[in-house]
């Protein structure tokens, strides 16, 4: 078909040609760097997933895109994929991400999903040399991915379960008033790691401390935790330790509080996304969390500015997972250092990287297993001394105990195989 271009006035033709040139030039210089975010954005666990996505998108805009992008003006584009926290759905979404030519994948929720994704990534990378995918794990803490199942293409930016438990059990062991402990958790890989590790560590650190209960319940199936709490009460436990997250965490904590049991509860995930507001006044000084990156008191001006800017844009949300920001920042640093967006180059640059986070933490990505090390904190749920609260409830996390990264270097069984 003959284009009717010849019929246009001369001047218009020049303008069109100029425009076409301009657009072509632009798309070449500013092709965005696309990053997939595969996590639950609908269904039972949507709350954590959407909150993570908001933070990643905000961090990309606030730290890089608004300042003219990276690698000489390229923008970061976060592409969300909804896996409904199902391993099957994750594989489908992973295929979609590949078909869209995305080479970097963020994922964090549920170790079961992370392990599935890891298998898919490993298989893909083996079959498609030169087209590898990089897995950025910002939250799945089953130690296996940086131990037996470690891989060159996987990086974890959260302290794994054993690192966190080391800190938590030290803290519990140091408290002479705690003579007995009740462990309860969800019946899946992470829950079992928590249970077994706690028993081992406690036996070493405080042989006199008795584990009076070690219970599993099906994940996401329990309607009412009161029957479990009845057992906790009658066991006479001085403290409870749990790895529960989401609705299982809130229901358990509420049932314990409602039963009038005033013993400390040591958790991994009992804050934010509605949980803090629901626990409110009743859980004050009772709920403890082990986590990275202090929330209160805020350590640096950079962190404060970041949080305030986030709050200004998303008044109903909080910066719940600073580790997402760290993961993105270290990824960008690796890209800048290697002047590349190729996963192989990024991965090599990430290895052994040292990085100062917004909170002023010295973080180190160990090359041996691709596990990030930074200081770990134990915080308490309270409304005193809280500058940045959670869920706009006035309550938030205040750090009461800190462990430096060099005091928490857990050994790894990983034997990293690097591509030649």
């Amino acid at each position: 078909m003959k284009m009717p271009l010849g019929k246009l006035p001369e001047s218009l033709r020049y303008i069109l040609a100029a425009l076409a040139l301009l657009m072509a030039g632009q798309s070449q210089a500013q092709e965005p760097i696309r990053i997939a975010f595969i996590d639950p954005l609908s269904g039972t666990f949507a709350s954590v997933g959407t909150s993570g996505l908001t933070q990643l998108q905000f961090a990309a805009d606030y730290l890089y895109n608004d300042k003219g992008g990276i690698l000489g003006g390229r923008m970061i584009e976060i592409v969300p994929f909804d896996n409904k926290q199902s391993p099957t759905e994750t594989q489908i979404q992973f295929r979609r991400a590949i078909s869209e030519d995305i080479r970097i994948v963020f994922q964090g929720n549920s170790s079961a999903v992370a392990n599935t994704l890891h298998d898919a990534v490993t298989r893909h990378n083996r079959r498609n040399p030169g087209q590898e995918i990089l897995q950025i794990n910002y939250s799945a803490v089953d130690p296996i991915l940086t131990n037996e199942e470690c891989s060159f293409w996987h990086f974890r930016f959260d302290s794994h379960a054993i690192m966190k438990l080391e800190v938590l059990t030290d803290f519990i062991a140091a408290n002479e008033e705690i003579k007995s402990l009740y462990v309860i958790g969800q019946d899946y890989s992470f829950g079992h790691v928590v249970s077994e590790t706690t028993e081992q560590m406690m036996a070493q650190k405080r042989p006199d401390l008795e584990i009076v209960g070690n219970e599993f319940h099906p994940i996401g199936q329990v309607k009412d935790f009161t029957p479990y709490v009845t057992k906790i009460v009658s066991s006479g436990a001085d403290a409870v330790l749990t790895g529960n997250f989401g609705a299982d965490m809130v229901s358990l904590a509420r049932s314990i509080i409602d039963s009038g049991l005033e013993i400390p509860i040591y958790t991994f995930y009992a804050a934010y996304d509605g949980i803090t507001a629901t626990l409110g006044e009743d859980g004050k000084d009772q709920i403890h969390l082990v986590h990275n990156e202090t929330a209160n008191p805020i350590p640096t001006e950079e962190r404060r500015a970041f949080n305030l800017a986030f709050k200004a844009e998303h008044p109903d949300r909080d910066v719940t997972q600073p580790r997402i920001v760290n993961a993105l920042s270290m990824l960008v640093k690796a890209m800048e250092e290697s002047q590349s967006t190729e996963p192989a180059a990024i991965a090599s640059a990430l290895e052994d990287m040292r990085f100062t986070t917004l909170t002023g933490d010295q973080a180190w990505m160990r090359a041996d297993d691709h596990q990030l090390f930074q200081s770990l904190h134990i915080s308490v749920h309270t409304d005193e001394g809280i500058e940045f609260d959670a869920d706009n409830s006035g309550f938030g996390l205040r750090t009461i105990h800190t462990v430096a990264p060099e005091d928490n270097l857990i050994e790894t069984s990983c034997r990293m195989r690097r591509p030649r």
Partner: protein
Amino acid sequence: MIEVLIFATLNGLVTGLLLFMLASGLTLIFSMMGVLNFAHASFYMLGAYFAYSISLYLGFWGGLLFAPLIVGVLGALIERYGLRKVHDSGHVAELVFTFGLAFLIEEAVQFFWGPDTKNYQTPDLLDFPLFTLFGQEFSAYRGFMITISVGIFVALYYVLTRSRIGIIIQAAITHPNTVANLGHNVPLIFMLVFGVGTALAGVAGVIAGPVLTTFPGMALVLGSIVFVIVVIGGLGSLAGAFIASLLIGLLQSYAIASDVGMADLLNLLGLEFARDHPLDDLWTLTLPQIAPLLPYLLLVLVLIFRPSGLMGKREQ
């Protein structure tokens, strides 16, 4: 030991009676319209969310009063303008309709209220321990839950068996054409029953929301178990639903409270397996670990040995 038994019984009662409030509406709707309402638990969730929003302005009691009304009216409207139109296309179409409705409601709840857990609390008035036994508190709110549930059971039973409208409803279940010929408006009765059934689910949501937490997955957690109850109790039987609800509530509660597992069974048989046995997971299974799955086991057993359910009348 005795304290665990007492509290396990109380906990089982609370759960069982709560389940009954959902199951009663579901079984009523089924016996009348022949429709298994897959969206029933979604109305329970709507009850909790409406009550939460209302409680921000009128307090808990305002929510208790108005939320079930709104849910009931919504249910009646859905019956009138949705289900009734689909009715002509047969039961499968109705089933699919309610199935889709469940998803729609869940998405709508996430759309309007967001995916986070809502801070829906018990009223201050009931924020005290009703009694303390062996150092364990039983909260007044749980007592209140029991009272409401029993009250609804009694009222429902009375209305269905003693009142004029109840007699018409019962007649409409078995002989809809005759009832219509006698001059009663059968479609209106259907709409009413659907409205009341969903309102009951709404009440359950209002009173369960604060203790079982209000989040978008709450319908999913309870949805399947309600069907189990209706099937075990016998489809369409109110008394059956009542017995099955209590049975399942107590069964789960006792199972959690117990401390027995496969290991004890093996000890009894004088067997022992090495820790690294390939079936280690099976040998170390405990009853509390599988407690929430027991109702489904019971369902399978009932379907094998008594397909019509405990109190079911239909034996085809």
